[in-house]
């Protein structure tokens, strides 16, 4: 099998080469410009953020030392006693963990309830009055942009220390975040069933119940579960500002350098978060499957 490489005439080749070089040079110039801007931003940020590499290098050995201190003294012979000593306050922590989960649960549920009501007013296909839609969207945006810990700080002052401000802060943030997601789900539905329901003379609530809800309910549940996962993590730190849960014990342990307490509480939190993630992931897959079956 003979093959021949087609050679272009020299002048055509030169033109093509020049064109190629110009294109590559333009691309390189753009990359260089981007990198320069990024480098300048980084230098400025380094000055504003008081980055001190010398201090960092002088202190970096403390990090492995810190992690080393977190590891409890366990020996194989006295493993039971060592673990019992590591988790010395297991009863107290194990009563705080369900509280943390309850904070996440109640906060999520309240947020979901609010988002469920408002999302129908924030979706373009079901709410034709512009001002209602825009007002509800701006309200949701406000609720999710203010960090939940800021709400928690305010509520601790208004409602007093305890789990209640934590729950309310989580509820407001969940409301803002889920309201937006729910409204997007509602905007993606098939409008034919809604028209069908309206044509039979159904009221607004009835058409939402029988034409919209069956299309969106599994998506709503899946988003709510995802939010619950996120809220479990947030609930674990609500105690930092006095808003209940295991966070307060963790903060005290870190602040007072009770190393093994820190690792014990962190182990409990990470284990809980992983279990919750696993369970909700199963549930969400089941929900998706259920949606496809029906």
């Amino acid at each position, binding site marked *: 099998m003979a093959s021949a490489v087609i050679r272009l005439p020299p002048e055509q080749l030169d033109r093509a080469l020049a064109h190629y070089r110009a294109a590559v040079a333009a691309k390189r110039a753009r990359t260089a410009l981007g990198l320069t801007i990024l480098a300048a931003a980084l230098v400025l940020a380094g000055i504003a953020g008081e980055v001190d590499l010398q201090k960092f290098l002088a202190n970096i050995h403390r*990090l492995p030392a810190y992690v080393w201190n977190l590891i409890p003294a366990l020996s194989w012979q006295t493993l039971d006693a060592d673990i019992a000593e590591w988790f010395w306050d297991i009863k107290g922590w194990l009563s705080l963990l369900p509280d943390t989960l309850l904070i996440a649960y109640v906060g999520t549920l309240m947020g979901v309830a609010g988002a469920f009501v408002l999302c129908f007013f924030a979706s373009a296909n079901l709410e034709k009055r512009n001002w209602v839609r825009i007002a509800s969207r701006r309200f949701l945006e406000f609720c999710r942009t203010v960090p939940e810990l800021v709400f928690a700080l305010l509520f601790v002052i208004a409602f*007093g220390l305890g789990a209640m401000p934590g729950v309310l802060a989580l509820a407001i943030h969940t409301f803002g975040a889920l309201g937006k997601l729910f409204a997007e789900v509602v905007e993606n539905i098939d409008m034919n069933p809604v028209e069908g329901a309206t044509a039979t003379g159904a009221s607004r609530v009835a058409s939402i119940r029988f034409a919209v809800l069956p299309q969106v309910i599994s998506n709503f549940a899946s988003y709510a579960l995802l939010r619950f996962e996120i809220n479990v993590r947030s609930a674990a730190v609500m105690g930092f500002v006095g808003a*209940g849960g295991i966070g307060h014990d963790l903060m005290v342990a870190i602040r007072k350098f009770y190393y093994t307490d820190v690792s014990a509480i962190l182990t409990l939190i990470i284990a809980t978060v992983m279990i919750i993630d696993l369970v909700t992931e199963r549930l969400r897959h089941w929900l998706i499957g259920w949606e496809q079956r029906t």
Partner: protein
Amino acid sequence: MNALREAVLADDDALRRRYPEVFDPHIMRSALAAILVAGMLALAVFGFWRLDFSLARFGSGLAQIAHIVTSMWPPSPGTQLPVFLHALAETLAIALIGTLTGAALAFPLGLLAAKNVIPNVFAHFAVRRLLDTVRGVDVLIWALIFINVVGLGPFAGILAIAVSDMGSFGKLFSEAIENSDRKPVEGVVSTGASPLHAVRFGLVPQVFPVMASQVLYYFESNTRSATIIGIVGAGGIGLHLTEQIRVLDWNKVAFLVLMILVTVAVIDWISSRLRFAMISRSVVVVS
């Protein structure tokens, strides 16, 4: 319309026979749904009881909030505007450096955690569990830990965001890499390139736009995180926010919250424009 209704009603029995599932909803399924809802409500009521909710407390708290909101007007920085602006710059700096450092740390980990780059099961299993553990710890907890290591200040915040982002980016990057097309890599390898060349010229051009857009997205969300890590003392505007809330100076609190909202909105706008510009050139689709 009435004629149609009459016709349908006359044929009612036939309709019922033809669509039994519409007229006789599955009794088990309705019962299951009812039990589920009742269980969820019962748990919520238990939660209200266990977490010391009371209407009296709720009412007095609402009155307090109304008082706070009215005394927030007008928002004003007092004489501390330069201090607040500096803290805001610090917040943005923490978010930027933290995100980029996290991405830089996560890139090699993302390669290690991707099944198609490192075929060794143990390697990517170990890296993934490490990333899971890092992600299981909230950024505020990392901030507290790094305060113990490098002292109070924005540097602790940078390190906290970098480490917690490393966990998230590692996972996202490895997923982007696993979704990439094998053919460019095979093409590069077939020219006799080393494995590193294959990654650089076969893989990176495919996944870079996706990664860059994820980094931008995290920069957005880290601007929010950076506003709160000051609450535990890791630099940024959160420190001032906590202080002003503690001394009940509501005008300044309102001003600080407005500053945060405006900054977050501006960053969101810039980064979403950049992200759309980048993702439109990308090859790999990440769901």
